[in-house]
């Protein structure tokens, strides 16, 4: 099957609805056999981008390629993609097997072959034997898997997921997203996945394209996005960074010496010039210690929340209010306690201030 997986390429694509631009000058390449997530807040253009790949929307400008073929003007039926919808969109008047077989039947695959493939598809998602049921007789998670099977049996060059987990409860989500990743890996599919949940995106993706206000904010691996966010928006959207003011005092080769609230740190300069700058502090990189004599930075705990696996603090400091995650649940710090603030060796990075 992996032989059929194809790449997807956007070249300067725009989508306008009257005066509104939903997608602005978007270009990217999705390598064959990878799972790429389109991530962003609602209304950022990620779903429109997905629908542009499918052909459910037509680009106002720019070119779209699947594999080596330009598909910009091709209607949805002529594109070798299939899609798993947010609402699953299972046909309520057909049985599960009829649903899964539908794409094969309308492509005039002989009946015996299409039945066999549909059965195999159901097996693949662990629903063998459910073929005769109606979608309404399945649970939400099962319906979701039927939708995946229905899209899979066509062996599409690109498989699209439009927020496939948003209708599932939290526990099931983890399970299903691992199943999807597993299937994608073992079949070597090209998959494009839309979500607004950054954790989900980090968990399943080979690469993440973060979108904001119709444009691409950043395009990179989960690790790159987390550790080197391109701007204030990405840093904030992925992993709740504390964004604080700092000052680059001088550059020294690849690194910059930065003043953060009176303490000095050497960080990769990421192309920034000396002067005021923005620093992203990950909540788990801010460490709280008991106050001693010569602390560089001090603060006071104003809120403490116990969450079982970890504690969340809000700390008042000269840098502003800091959001802190601390795994040491055995030693909680009471509200009102003065603390010394240290920054860990990782999870502190300079960010270009664009917004």
């Amino acid at each position, binding site marked *: 099957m992996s032989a059929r997986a194809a790449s997807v390429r956007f070249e300067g694509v725009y989508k306008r609805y009257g005066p509104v631009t939903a997608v602005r000058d978007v270009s990217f390449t999705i390598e064959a056999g990878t799972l790429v997530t389109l991530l962003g807040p609602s209304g950022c253009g990620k779903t429109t981008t997905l629908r542009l790949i499918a052909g459910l929307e037509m680009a106002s400008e720019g070119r779209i390629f699947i594999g080596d073929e330009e598909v910009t003007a091709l*209607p949805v*039926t002529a594109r070798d993609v299939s899609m798993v919808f947010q609402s699953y969109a*299972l046909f309520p008047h057909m049985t599960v097997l009829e649903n899964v077989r539908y794409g094969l039947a*309308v492509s005039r695959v002989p009946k015996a072959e299409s039945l066999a493939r549909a059965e195999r598809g159901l097996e693949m998602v662990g629903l063998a034997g459910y073929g005769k049921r109606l979608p309404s007789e399945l649970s939400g998670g099962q319906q979701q898997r039927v939708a995946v099977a*229905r899209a899979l049996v066509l062996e599409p060059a690109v498989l699209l997921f439009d927020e496939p987990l948003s209708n599932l409860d939290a526990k099931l989500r983890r399970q299903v997203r691992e199943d999807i990743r597993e299937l994608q890996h073992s079949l070597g599919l090209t998959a494009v996945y839309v979500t607004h949940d950054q954790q989900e995106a980090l968990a399943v993706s080979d690469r993440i394209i973060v979108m904001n206000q119709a444009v691409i904010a950043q395009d990179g691996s989960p690790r790159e996005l987390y550790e080197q966010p391109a701007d204030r928006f990405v840093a904030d959207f992925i992993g709740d960074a504390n964004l604080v003011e700092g000052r680059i005092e001088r550059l020294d080769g690849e690194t910059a010496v930065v003043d953060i609230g009176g303490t000095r740190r050497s960080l990769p300069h990421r192309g920034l010039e000396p002067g005021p700058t923005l620093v992203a502090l990950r909540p788990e990189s801010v460490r709280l210690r008991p106050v001693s004599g010569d602390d560089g930075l001090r603060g006071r705990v104003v809120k403490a929340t116990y969450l079982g696996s970890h504690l969340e603090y809000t700390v008042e400091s000269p840098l502003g209010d800091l959001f802190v995650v601390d795994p040491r649940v055995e030693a909680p710090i009471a509200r009102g306690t003065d603390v010394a603030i240290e920054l860990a060796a990782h999870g502190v990075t300079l960010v270009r201030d664009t917004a």
Partner: protein
Amino acid sequence: MRAPGGGGRVPAAVLWNAVGWAGFLVLPWYGIGDGFWSFAWLDGYPADPDHAPAVWQVLGHGRAWLAPIAFLLAVPLTVIGRPRGDARRGTVLLASGLVGLAYLVAQGFAIGIGGFELAWLEQLLGPLGQRQYGMGYGALLTAAAFLFLFTEGLAARGAVKGDGFVVGGIGLVVALVVTFIVFPVSRILASAFQNDDYEYAPAQFVARITSHDIWGLGCLSENVACGIAWNSLGLGVMTGASTTALGLAFALLATRTAFPAKRLLRTMTVLPLITPPFVIGLALILLFGVSGSFTQFLEWAFDIPPTRYVYGPFGVWLAQTLAFTPIAFLVLIGVVEGVSPSMEEAAQTLRAGRWKTFTTVSLPLMRPGIANAFLLGFVESLADFGNPLVLGGEFDVLSTAVFFAIVGAQHDQGRAAVLAIVLLVFTLAAFLAQHLWLGNRSYATVTGKGDAGLPPPLPRGVSLAAHWTAIPWAVFTGIIYVMVLFGGFVEVWGLDHTMTVRHYVEAFAVRLGDGGLEWSGVAWPSFFTTLTISAVAAPLTAAVGLLTAWLLVRQRFAGRRAFEFGTMLSFAVPGTVIGVSYILAFNVPPLELTGTGVILVISFVFRNMPVGVRAGVAAMTQLDRSLDEASLTLRAGTLTTIRRVVLPLLRPAIVASLVFSFVRAMTAISAVVFLVSADYDMATSYIIGRVENGDYGLANAYCAVLIVVMVAAIGLVQLLVGQRELGRRQGRTEAGPAMAGGA
């Protein structure tokens, strides 16, 4: 794995080009005089000049002006082999289709029965030796081919996501609406500006439209009749007000009281559907006419001499109020139920008493709905033709005046056109008011959320008023229907009340003759015509209506709002106006349809299409759009998607619009009276004729049979489709998303 797109199918452009050639080379180009379905043309084909295909007309019969059509059909051949995404292919298809269609239409209008129709063409090119008649199969096929080549071209250039089927569907609906609504109605305008010699005469138009008998206000000061326009307007306002008031009383009774016979009340809403519009008038004559039961009772009991008091504005108003109250009821039930009980509960917790709650919360929330019901009653009254015809007497309204201007001794097309314009302006104004003013002002608060509240009981005064208006009126309506069913069994109403089946025998006798069964009753020919025409029209109406609804709900395209407005417009055009306009438009080439059954079918399809559109829109907005999209991404073409996903889920809506258009076609009268012919007489126009002759017995018998047939038809369809299955399907559609959302 097959090629994406299903592979192996003939591209639509190739198919339509072939159809175009078939129309040009093979089928007879002009209309066949013997009727659309007659195959007598095969005799003498293809040499016969009346039945020859276009290519023969050009080569053999000197109709050289048809030759460019072949050229325009040949142009697409140069690009048809190119791949679908090719820009040049799209442009060439688009241009050749558009030019071809324009040329075909232009030559049809330019050259008619007398050679050149346009004087300047004759001056330019000299008189033409040849002539041509209305378009036939060949021309229609070729026109369709050009239309769809054009839409294919548009789609190939990326219109509406490059979906050829959708663009084609839009093109088809637009072409149909333009041909069968816009063109005929504009023909009225043209006709209004012409004098008897078909010359442009604006002065005469001004004289006609300002005429005293349309706008005169003599009735206010002297004892003469008022202008027809004022008659219509006054009647419309009265009927609108009375039907709304009664409808509201019924609606309150049915939803907000403990009235025991609520189900019975609700069945009232089907009455206007199954009742031919003049039946009420007929029944009123039997009750209140000179020899009517009530009149005779008054004479016997109080020595009040019988008069013709029921003939005139009072009788027409009474008949219309009886006929249209159920329509207002139907509208207002939805409105009253739409007022959220929690709002009323909120008012009550804020210390408002029952009466205060009703007047300050409930009633204002219903106001747009009430205005809507009033406008509906107003338009129905203006468009009503049957009741004024039967009961009007000396009292003329616009719809009947239009009819008499055409068929009466006057035979004045110009006057008919002017009257039709006045009528059209009134109904369009009401339609526009409804559309613009009420369109976005619904306060209905029905949401997906459960509304746990209970509506508070009505204030005592309101409740009493509702009971006291609704119950007597319901009883009255009941009596009326008994009269209709009973009237046919009496020898001569008012004079000889001997029970008889004579009228039924006369109308519906069946004899065993030499050649088997003989349908010897006088009503059979019109009865069978009515059944046939209605049965042909119903599926077409449903198809056009649902296609339009699907385009409106599921597709986004430039001009969508104008498209919606245009398709709904035919709702606002009164039947009499359609009737006149069809006579004016389709009596001469390029489309000669008068005197055929086809024109009746067409008039029904476009009169009733908005019903199908509304049913379809209502049903389709309930279906998740991603169902269609899922099917498309699974490689099913648009047509397959409609057939396998949309239609099965829309079955209830399809059945509803089928039944509705069938029944409406059977009971229609206003457009029909203009369009019937000796060969194609319809039941309603036949009955009207009998009423005009005072033959009430047979008319009553026929009406009763019609009503029974329609009730049977509705029942049969419900049985066939299966109420149980409908319920289950709805349950299923609801269960899907609910489970998905709840998980």
